[in-house]
């Protein structure tokens, strides 16, 4: 069995190894090793467009994950005390949000927004009172955050709801019996219990948004996220710069994951 596991890990890491290997290529080709060099890392880090794409990805991921976590947690909490039709509707919405493929959401959002803009922008231009050009709605940060946030929010609701369902109710009752206000109960009893779930949901939402290509590809407009930049680079003719970017993202996520793991292990008692 160990041999099998080793084979699977090899399968997972040989392609990654190739990517990292060629990121050190002294030559220009992404498929022919011609010596060792760090030039591509330098080029990637000094490339304005790469850095901007990275920043855009970061901003969109952070914002959409934060909003999704806050609104999703609120909704998860509220859904506990909701029955009947409203509950059914929300359950259906969450189910649809997770089930509809990203590409359909991306395309649908694109054409819905484009149709909306085609309708609203002439109106804006007509009613704008000042002398300079009216602001025009366009695809960009807003549409990215809105589209990513949708799926993330569904994820958050699912995860937090599961966490709430697994909570120890007796503590809440005890807290109420002892005279705590609902908000106090929430802050001191409920929240600590569901917090790991909220944190996990936030991380998941962040990862999803940061790595997403399909939805961003359709709704990003003139903005470029890192996955879009990589895709565009591959079409342009791959140079090892793309490999360097991939290796750096990999290294950062490896460090983050290991750090998070060691922090969690120190915080939580041995289970």
């Amino acid at each position: 069995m160990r041999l099998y596991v080793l084979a699977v890990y090899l399968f997972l890491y040989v392609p990654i190894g190739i990517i990292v290997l060629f990121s050190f290529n002294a030559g220009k080709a992404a498929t022919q090793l011609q010596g060792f060099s760090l030039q591509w890392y330098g080029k990637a880090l000094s490339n304005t467009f790469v850095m901007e794409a990275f920043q855009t990805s970061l901003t969109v991921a952070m914002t959409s994950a934060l909003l999704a976590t806050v609104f999703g947690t609120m909704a998860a909490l509220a859904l506990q005390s909701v029955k009947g039709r409203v509950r059914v509707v929300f359950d259906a919405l969450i189910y649809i949000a997770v089930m509809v493929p990203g590409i359909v959401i991306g395309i649908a959002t694109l054409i819905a927004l484009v149709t909306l803009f085609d309708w609203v922008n002439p109106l804006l231009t007509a009613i704008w009172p000042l002398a300079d050009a009216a602001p025009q709605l366009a695809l960009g940060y807003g549409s990215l955050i809105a589209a990513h946030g949708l799926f993330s929010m569904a994820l958050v609701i699912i995860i937090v709801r599961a966490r709430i369902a697994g909570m120890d109710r007796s503590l809440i009752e005890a807290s109420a019996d002892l005279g705590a206000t609902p908000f106090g109960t929430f802050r001191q009893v409920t929240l600590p219990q569901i917090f790991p779930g909220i944190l996990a949901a936030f991380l998941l939402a962040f990862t999803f948004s940061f790595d997403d290509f399909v939805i961003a590809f359709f709704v990003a407009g003139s903005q470029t996220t890192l996955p879009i930049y990589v895709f565009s680079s591959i079409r342009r003719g791959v140079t090892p710069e793309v490999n360097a970017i991939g290796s750096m993202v990999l290294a950062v996520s490896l460090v983050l994951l290991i750090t998070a793991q060691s922090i969690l292990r120190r915080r939580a008692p041995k289970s």
Partner: protein
Amino acid sequence: MTDRSDFISREKFMAELARYEKGSVSRRHFMGVTGLGLATGVLGSALPGLRGAAWAQSGIGDRVILASWPNYHDPANFEAFAAATGAAVDMSVFGSNEEMLAKLQAGGTGWDVFVPTNYTISTYVDLDLIEPLDLSRIPNYDLASFDPRFAEPGTVNGVVYAVSRNWGTTGYAVNTAHTAGRQMASWKDFWDVTMAEFSGRTMVHDYQLTTIGAALKSFGYSFNSIDPKELADAENLLIEAKPHLFAITSDYQPSMRSGDAWMTICWTGDALQLHRDIPEIVYVLGTEGGELWSDFLAIPKGAPHLDAAYALINYLLDPAVNMKEVVFHGYPVADKRVDALLPPEILNDPIMYPAAELLTPLEFGAAVTLTDPGRAEVMARFKSA
């Protein structure tokens, strides 16, 4: 070289103007000799609006967004542009005019400059997606030195929307190391060999004009046909050939270079680049015909960095820069001034400048192919098959 006198005689002015119009002297010489350059420079610094007319290129912003084709630009030229103006070039590539049109129709592309092909410009004008060009901001564009055949499509209803960048042909590239001496000359050869000896080794473009056109030509129909019966014949051929194809892509150079593919529908410059590095790869213009095309530089409506757009276009049309581009990408340009600067071995290259009898059967793309739903569906069905 410039004749700086305080004033210039009327006769001398007319003589210089005549020489300039004939193309015997450059605009720069004319401006310098007549003192107009100095005057414009003085005015330009005094009146900010006229700045674009002179050579001042700074202050155009920090970027220009370009939408172009694969293997079309020398990166060194972009680096020089960035160094001189402070504007970095952000380029994305596309494999077909339909892709560019789709992106522009959806809006919010953020492009400053794009490279449309001759037959698409009238559609862009109809759809109000393209900006009329202010030629005074492109002093390097000298209409007189451009071959009208290739420059003319950029002007629609008397307004200039696009300036000629280069022209070329569509044929196919074949790696003769695998043909075993068989003579490849026609589109019929292309399809026959695809389905036999080269099964699994041929590529076609992800671009309906050239791929459907290649199929149409092998029957002797027009490259631009929208006749349903002819399109049906082409579709049958394409679907029959599909299992034998290696890939459907307009980014075909890597596979040709790695030896995964042995034959592909190909444009002039790519063929030249491939042949340069792998001499066994030759370029074939199908005897039945093919496409003759010219590409343009244009500005889409709503371009966010207009100054940078004009600066880039002007820069790329500078004969000295254009010459370097030609040497890199291998596509011929319609600008006589550039031809004057090119070394003879390039001017005599049979791939870049095919013999007249090979050029005659070629057709320019027709605007209707871009919008015809029949052709779009044939291509989509072929890809879905």
